[in-house]
Structures are given as structure tokens and as C-alpha cells.
């Protein structure tokens, strides 16, 4: 396999920057896609998850259909749909940059999983809490806002943590539509320098670091918002 050659990262790419600089900027793209997609996924996923727990059959159907639709199509195919199909069906979207399309693709894909977690979190609460909320004169919206959701969101923090780590891993699929993220960098730099092992090691390490950082941040949030007296609280 030959000797290590870590100096490859100091070589010029031909574009006035070194491979190291290119890699760090790719890391930035990976994290930007991940964070923005996570925001989309949390908003849409919570909304759909809540719909699935309402007494209205229509709303439950909408939430269920959303979840099944985005859960049963591979992420790569969904990214192709956003990138190739949607702009040609809706001409006004043609000017939207592919970065935004990938954020929505990954965000909606993940929203289906988050909807599932949020639904399970809300349904794990005793029914009596809903009744108690309604009985004290709260409207259904208020019951969700002040009784159910504050508990449910705390319960779903652990599964949401692993979804946040998944979203970082899943940004790698964006290579297929030429987003300049880490995997794209790995493939191109490997081809240009033939130092694949060094390049892949560095990129893999960056994925590790990113996922680990998310894990720690989530643990911090979990500690901050824990309800005293429940299992798991210190």
C-alpha cells in the first residue's frame, strides 16, 4: 500500500487553495446542509407527528400519508426528485440553488422519522393528561401547548439525538447532485491525488467528530430540560 503521504493536504488543488482548505470548506457545507435540514425536519416532523395524534381522522390521515410517503422512498431517489423532477414540473423553482433543494430533500426525508418519534412520544403520555387539560377548560391547542408537548418533547430527545446524528451521515448522499460536501470532496480529491487512504481517513474522522459533537450537545440539552423526579433525572 506504500507509505503515508499526509503532505497531500498541503498540495495546491490548482484553484489557489490547498486540499486542506478545500476539505474544511467541504466540512462547512456538510454541517450547513445538516443543520438547515435538521431545522426543516424538526418543524415539519413535529407538525406531522402532532397531526397524527389528533382526534380528527382527516388530520391523522394527512400525517400518516406524509410519513409513509417520505419513509418508503430511498433518500437518493428523493434527492433526484427534488433536483431533476420538481424544477422541471414547476418552472418557477428553476432558479432555486441545488443547495436549497438538498436541504429540503434531506429535511423532508428526516421529517418522516421525526414525525414517528413525536407521535410515539405524545402517545406514550397517559390519556388522563389530555382529559385533565380539557377538563380545566383549556382548548385542545392549549392542551397540546401547555400539557402534552412539554413532556413529549423531553421524552423524544434521545431518539431525536440519533436522528440528528443520522442527518449528518445522510448529508453524504448530496454528493450525487454535486454539492461540495465532504463525500464529494473525498471522491474528487481521491481521483486527483491518488492518495485515497489519507483523504478518506481525514474525511471519516471529520464525520466522527461532527456526530460526536451533536451527541454531546444533545446530552447537554437533555440535562438542561429534564423534569426533576422522573427516571433519568439526577
Amino acid at each position, binding site marked *: *500500500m506504500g507509505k503515508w503521504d499526509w503532505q497531500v493536504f498541503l498540495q495546491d488543488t490548482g484553484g489557489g487553495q490547498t486540499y486542506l482548505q478545500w476539505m474544511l470548506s467541504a466540512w462547512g457545507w456538510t454541517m450547513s446542509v445538516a443543520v438547515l435540514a435538521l431545522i426543516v425536519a424538526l418543524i415539519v416532523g413535529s407538525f406531522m407527528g402532532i397531526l397524527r395524534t389528533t382526534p380528527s381522522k382527516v388530520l391523522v390521515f394527512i400525517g400518516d400519508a406524509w410519513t*409513509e*410517503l417520505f*419513509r*418508503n*422512498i*430511498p*433518500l*437518493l*431517489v*428523493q434527492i*433526484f*426528485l427534488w433536483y*431533476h*423532477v420538481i424544477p*422541471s*414540473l414547476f*418552472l418557477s423553482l428553476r432558479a432555486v440553488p441545488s443547495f436549497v433543494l438538498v436541504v429540503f430533500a434531506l429535511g423532508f426525508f428526516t421529517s418522516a422519522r421525526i414525525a414517528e418519534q413525536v407521535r410515539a412520544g405524545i402517545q406514550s403520555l397517559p390519556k388522563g393528561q389530555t382529559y385533565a387539560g380539557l377538563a380545566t377548560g383549556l382548548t385542545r391547542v392549549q392542551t397540546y401547548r401547555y400539557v402534552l408537548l412539554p413532556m413529549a418533547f423531553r421524552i423524544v430527545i434521545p431518539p431525536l439525538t440519533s436522528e440528528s*446524528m443520522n442527518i*449528518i*451521515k*445522510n*448529508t*453524504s*448522499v448530496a*454528493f*450525487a447532485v454535486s454539492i461540495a460536501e465532504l*463525500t464529494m470532496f*473525498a*471522491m474528487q480529491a*481521491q481521483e486527483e491525488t491518488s492518495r*485515497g*487512504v489519507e483523504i*478518506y481517513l481525514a*474525511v*471519516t474522522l471529520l*464525520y*466522527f467528530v461532527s*456526530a*460526536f459533537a451533536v451527541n454531546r450537545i444533545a446530552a447537554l440539552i437533555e440535562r438542561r430540560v429534564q423534569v426533576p423526579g422522573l427516571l433519568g433525572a439526577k
Partner: protein
Amino acid sequence: MNLDFGFFNWQIVQSFILKGLAFSVQLTLIAMVGGIALGTVLALMRLSGKPWLVMPAAAYVNVLRSIPLVMVILWFFLLIPLLLGRPLGAEVSAMITFTVFEAAYYSEIMRAGIQSVPKGQVAAGYAVGMTYAQCMKLIVLPQAFRNMLPVLLTQTIILFQDTSLVYAIGAYDLLKGFEVAGKNFNRPVETYLAAAVVYFVICFSLSMTVRQLQKKIAIIR
């Protein structure tokens, strides 16, 4: 833009799509069987209580679970020729990659399944004179498989979806079949839509089947 599916006929399905579907299904089945077998071994190692078995198994599972699958695919595609001295081709490389990768996920499922069997049963097995291997083979693993069957199958549906990622090394799978057909007939929009529908129909009906199975198992228990 108007969609035109008029060009789709049996000829195209036969010459582009079926070949890809066959590979995707083959890859899924190989990785499922190999992954569950290797995953079970890893789970037994992790539950053995012996540090020299626990540590490598835990490292294997945790490392693979924190790397994106696309990177794992690229790693194997890069390393296999370096180690063997000759390339194996994208298809074989994908089969090895998916088996190794999925084993990490199946092993977590099997670990939970094994842990769901009451300890007393193992003690009872030892008490009647069974060896460790007999206990596992005759008492624990059959129940672990049964308890975990719905989860193992759900993971397999995810695996089937993930096979589309062999795109990264250019293997000819179901998605590639649609893509090539789309390029040949200059109808990429229609073929990507068709690919989404086909994946959806396959995965949705499989997950419905798993759900039915889950209900049945729940009743028996």
C-alpha cells in the same frame, strides 16, 4: 412541462429495469443473510462478558454505525483492490460492503433480542446439563429471532432502500436502470418519477406485511 410516459413499454422494462431490480434484490438478500449471521456472532461476542471478545465487537459496531454508508462503500471500493491486488468490480465490492455494514445494525437488533430472553431460561439450560452452545442454539437464539423478526425485516427494508447508494461506485442497480433508460430516451423526469413509484410500492407493501406480522406475533405472545 408535460409528462409523457408513452415511451415506457415492456421492452424498456425488460432491457433496463429488470436487470437493475435483480441486482438490488440479490444485494439485499445477500447482505441480509450474511449480515444477520455476522451480526449474531457480533451480538454473542458483545454479550459474552469476556473483554477480549466484547471490545473488538463493540468497536466494530460503533465505528461502522458512525460512518455514512456512502463513505463505507467508497472505502471498500478503494481498499479491496489495494489488499487483493486486483479490482473485484463494483457489484462484488457492494455485496461485501453491505454485508459488513449491515452486520453492525443487525447485531444491535440481535443483541436486544437475546437480552429479551429471561435469564432463568439460560440457567435452566445449564441446569439440565446443556453447554453454552446448546443453550444458545436451542433456547436463546430461536426466541431472539422470533421476538426480533419484525425489526429484522424493517431493517431489511431500509437495507433495500440503501442499496440505491451503490450509485457512488457505479454499480447497476434498480435506480441505475431507471437512470440509464431516462438518459437513452431523454426522459429523465419521467424515469426518476417512475423509480420513486416503484421503490415506494415495494417498500410500502413490504412494511405493511411486516406490520401484519407484528400483530400476529403480538397475539401469540
